[in-house]
C-alpha cells in the first residue's frame, strides 16, 4: 500500500516515490511470561505518517523501541534506513530523532541549554534558534524544564528530536495528558515536520489523533497486528452503518419510511429522529433531506454520523475494560 505525499518546497512540487525506510519482519519480544510483541511485520515508506495504535499494553512502545534499537528483539528482522538498529545503533541515532514516552530533562536545565547541549551530540549542525521559534518556544528559552507545561515539554522534546535533521522521527504517545489546544498545536507541528520531508512513526491510543494525522495505521492488540491500512480504508471495510439525525416538532408521517432504502431503520427518541442505513446507491442524507422537503416536514439540526476509526478499533479489539 503506497502512500503518495506531495511536498511543495520553494515553489517546486516533489512527488515522493514509495521508498521503504523501515522494514520489520516477524518481530517478537517476550518479557518473562508476557509476550509483548508476537511476530509482527510491517513496512514504513518515506514521507508517511505511520501510526501504531492499540490499547494500553498492546505492545506499541515495545515495538517502537525495538525499531529504534533501544530494545533487543528476541527474534525477527528489522531494517531502518538500511541499518540494523542493534548493530548500527549509533549511526542510526545520528540520523533519526526520538521522543520517548517516559523521558525527562533535569528540572533546572533551561530550554535553550537543553537545545544547545543536545545539538552538540550530532555531527550535522542544526540552527536550534530556528527550531525554538518554529516550535513556539522563543518566550520560554530561559525557562527551566521543570517549569514548563505539558504541551511545552512535548514541543521541546519534538525540537530535541529534530536537532539531528532526521530523515525519520519516532514519536511515542506524544499528546497523552495534553489539553485539546495543546494537542491540536502538536498535530499541526507533526504535519509541518512531515511536510518538510521527515518520515514520522508514532504511537497513540487516541483514535481521533490517528485518524486525523496518520496516512496509515497498524492496529496492535495483544502483540499482534489485527489490521493495517489507511484510516479511510479501515473505516470503509468495517461496513458500519451511517446515521442521519434530525429534530422535528410534529410526529413523523407514517409513510416517510416508504421512500427510504430497504435496509434503512428509523429510530425515534422523543423529538429526535435517527435514520440508520448505508450509502449504497445514493447518499442516505440526500434521500432523507429530499423526502423531508417533499413531505414539507419542518426539521432542525440535521447532521450525519459517520463511523470513525474508534468504531473500527472497538470492533477489532473488543469493548471489555482492560488495564
Amino acid at each position, binding site marked *: 500500500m503506497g502512500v503518495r505525499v506531495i511536498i511543495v518546497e520553494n515553489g517546486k512540487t516533489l512527488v515522493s516515490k514509495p521508498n521503504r525506510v523501515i522494514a520489520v519482519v516477524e518481530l517478537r519480544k517476550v518479557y518473562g511470561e508476557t509476550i509483548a510483541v508476537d511476530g509482527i511485520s510491517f513496512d514504513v515508506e518515506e514521507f508517511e505518517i505511520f501510526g501504531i495504535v492499540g490499547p494500553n499494553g498492546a505492545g506499541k512502545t515495545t515495538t517502537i523501541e525495538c525499531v529504534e534499537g533501544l530494545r533487543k528483539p528476541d527474534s525477527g528482522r528489522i531494517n531502518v534506513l538500511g541499518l540494523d538498529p542493534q548493530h548500527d545503533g549509533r549511526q542510526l541515532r545520528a540520523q533519526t530523532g526520538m521522543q*520517548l514516552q517516559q523521558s525527562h530533562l*533535569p528540572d533546572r*536545565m533551561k530550554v535553550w541549554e537543553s537545545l544547545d*547541549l543536545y545539538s552538540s551530540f550530532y555531527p550535522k549542525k542544526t540552527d536550534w534558534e530556528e527550531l525554538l521559534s518554529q516550535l513556539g518556544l522563543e518566550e520560554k528559552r530561559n525557562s527551566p524544564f521543570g517549569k514548563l507545561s505539558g504541551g511545552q515539554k512535548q514541543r521541546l522534546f519534538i525540537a530535541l528530536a529534530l536537532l539531528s535533521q532526521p530523515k525519520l522521527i519516532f514519536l511515542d504517545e506524544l499528546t497523552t495528558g495534553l489539553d485539546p489546544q495543546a494537542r491540536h498545536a502538536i498535530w499541526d507541528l507533526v504535519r509541518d515536520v512531515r511536510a518538510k520531508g521527515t518520515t514520522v512513526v508514532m504511537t497513540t491510543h487516541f483514535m481521533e489523533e490517528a485518524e486525523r494525522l496518520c496516512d496509515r495505521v497498524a492496529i496492535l492488540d495483544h502483540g499482534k497486528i489485527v489490521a493495517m491500512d489507511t484510516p479511510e480504508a479501515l473505516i470503509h471495510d468495517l461496513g458500519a452503518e451511517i446515521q442521519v439525525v434530525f429534530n422535528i416538532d410534529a410526529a413523523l408521517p407514517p409513510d416517510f419510511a416508504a421512500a427510504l432504502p430497504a435496509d434503512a431503520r428509523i429510530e425515534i427518541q422523543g423529538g429526535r429522529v435517527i435514520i440508520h442505513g448505508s450509502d449504497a446507491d445514493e447518499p442516505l442524507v440526500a434521500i432523507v433531506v429530499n423526502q423531508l422537503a417533499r413531505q414539507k416536514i419542518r426539521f432542525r439540526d440535521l447532521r450525519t454520523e459517520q463511523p470513525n476509526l474508534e468504531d473500527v478499533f472497538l470492533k477489532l479489539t473488543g469493548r471489555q475494560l482492560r488495564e
Partner: protein
Amino acid sequence: MKSLLKMTWMETKLFFREPIGAFFTLGFPLMLLFIFGGIFGNEPSEYFKGYGSVDVSIPAYTAMIIATTGLTGLAITMSAYREVGVLRRLQTTPVHPLYVLFAQVIVLFAMTTLGMILLIVAARLIYQMRFDGNVLSVLGGFTLSSFSFFAIGLVLAGLMPTARTAQVVSMALLYPMLFLCGAGYPLELLPESIHRINKFLPLTYVVKLLRGLWVGESWALHAGEALVLAGILVVGVLVSLKTFRWE
C-alpha cells in the same frame, strides 16, 4: 569530546542551581571551621602532637567533603537521572549516557577540590594553619580517596531503585561516618569502643591517610589505608559494572 565539555559545563551550572549540594560541599565545612576554630582556636595541643585543632581539622573536613560528594552527590544525581528518564533520553542520541557519568565525576571532583581549597585558604588566613606535608603527596591521597568514594556512590546509584531511597540510604551511611570516623570530630578524642567500629567504615581510612600526609608522614607509613581505599575503588567499579542500570 565537545559533547563531554558541554555536558560538564551544564552539570557545573546545575550543581550551583541545586543549593543543598553546593552548601554541603562548599559552605558547611567552612561553617564548621569557623565554629570550632572560634571555640578551640589553633593553639598547639598535646592531644594533637603539638598541632592545633584547626591544623588537624582541615584534612578531616576535607575527608568530610569527599564523603559528601561521593555518597550523596553522585549516588543521588545518578539515581534521579535514571528514575526520571534523563539517561534514557540520552540513549536516543549518538552519545552514550556514560558521558553524563563522566561529566558528574569531573564536576564533583572539581567541587570537592574547590571545597578543600576554600578550607585551606580560610584556615591559613584566619587561623595561621600549619602544613608540613608534600603538596603532590596530599593531592595524590586526596584523589585516591575521592575516587574511592565515587566508586561507593556508583554502587549505591546502581542498587537504589529511586532517588528517594538513594537519598535516605546515602544520608544513613554518611552521617554516622562523619562522627565515627574522625571527620567531624577528631579521632584522638574518640573512645576505644568507637575505634573498634570505625575500622569497618571506609571514611576512617580517608581521614587517617589525609591527616598523615598532611603532616608530612610517608605513604609507606599509610600503605594499609591506601590499599584499603584502592581496594574499595577497584571493587566498587567492578560491582557497578555489573549492577548499574541506565533505565
